[in-house]
């Protein structure tokens, strides 16, 4: 380890620290800055295929070129329960309350966002 550090230049070290700081900060900022959504939007191949309300618990399957991806919404969070892609990246992301989960091989993008939900715009509840 010490040998490695000795073999680096000042510029090397500065660049390293800068990149680490920037990416860590980026992680925190993106997590906070993501719009709080009330919608789960599922896109297949770039086209919006399904929209679900984030506040209603449900489990459903999303068809894709590599097979069926099972998505679960629970407790205002969404996750990929089961996917058939190579690296299972999407599954490993766990529960997501903001931002998105991407399954690149399957061309499936699950994002949380938007204000529209089951009730029409501007309405908080419906009686009748």
């Amino acid at each position, binding site marked *: 380890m010490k040998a490695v550090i000795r073999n680096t230049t000042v510029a090397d070290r500065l660049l390293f620290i800068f990149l680490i700081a920037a990416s860590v900060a980026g992680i925190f900022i993106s997590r906070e800055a993501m719009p709080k959504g009330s919608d789960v939007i599922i896109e297949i191949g770039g086209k919006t295929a399904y929209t679900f*309300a984030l506040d209603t618990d449900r489990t459903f399957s999303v068809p894709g070129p590599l097979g069926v991806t099972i998505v679960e919404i629970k407790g*205002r969070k969404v996750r990929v329960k089961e996917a058939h892609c190579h690296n299972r990246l999407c599954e490993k992301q766990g529960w997501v309350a903001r931002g998105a989960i991407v399954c690149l091989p399957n061309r499936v993008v699950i994002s949380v966002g938007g204000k529209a939900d089951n009730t029409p715009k501007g309405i908080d*509840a419906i*009686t*009748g």
Partner: protein
Amino acid sequence: MKTKVFLLFFIFLLALPLSCGKGRPSIYKKTKPFMDTLVTITVVAGSDEQANRTIDKAFSVIEQFGDKINFFSDKSELSAINRNAGATPVKVSPDTLGVIERALYISEKSNGAFDPTIGPEMNMWDFFKKIRPSDTAIKKKLSLINYRDIIVDHDRSTVLLRRKGMLMDLGGIAKGYAADLALANLKQNGIGAGIVAAAGDIRAFGLKPDGTLWNIGIKNPRQQSEADELIAKASLTNKAISTSGDYERYFIEDGRRYHHILDPKTGYPAGRCRSVTVISDSGIFADGFSTAVFVSGPEKGMELVREAGSDAVIIDKDGVIHTTPAVKGMVTFESGH
């Protein structure tokens, strides 16, 4: 050395925006099925965690209450009462006693337009399979419908149905009571604003984060398309709002509409109104009352509402809208109505 200090400062600057964003109150919503319908609880909270925690607690209160008055479950207190009709009084828990007493109060005030002993008649209808009883069957069971035959002993906390074959159905009033329980629970746990909506029975309290009132849509009883869904929008808070309509559970046969709000005096679906929305300060006057007003019709119903010091929107069988004066300040009607 200087560069290292600069870098640390830079990282610190990046970290600043993280401290904002937490603690700003926003609206959270959650929906779960209970009591044969979907219950949605909306709260204004400072975090996901607070919202989830308080909403889940309120949900469990609703669940426990729902189990006690479940008409279709043998284990419920209500079923115990029904099984022992014409036999022995049944001891019940405070909430069950409370909702039954509330039902009795509304029955008295409405002269029987609302009557929880409607069970035997309700049982003969199936709105999903489109089954309706014969006229003879309906007439036969009418004698079992009489709220005065519910004997409540408040001190002993018991309820007795006087005659064998009587069945109590609290469906017309249970959701509102559950909403009240949930509301109290949310307030107890520190929530200052929100909505509890058990299907159409709604309780709204507090103000939204931007300081405005809650917007509650009123369904159009003769909705033709998606654009037509609402007939009016009510802006209010700290009120109970409840609707009874002939479009919730129904089927049409030979041009006639058969729906689930039966007139306790005739055993047939009440036909004087299409929908009634009652807006009240107290939950007690909202749900059971909307049923009572629905059955009573526009004139008698309006009287009931006025006596109770509440407000209402009544859409009668011809589609004509009747309102109490104060409604003008609370409700805006969609164009065309």
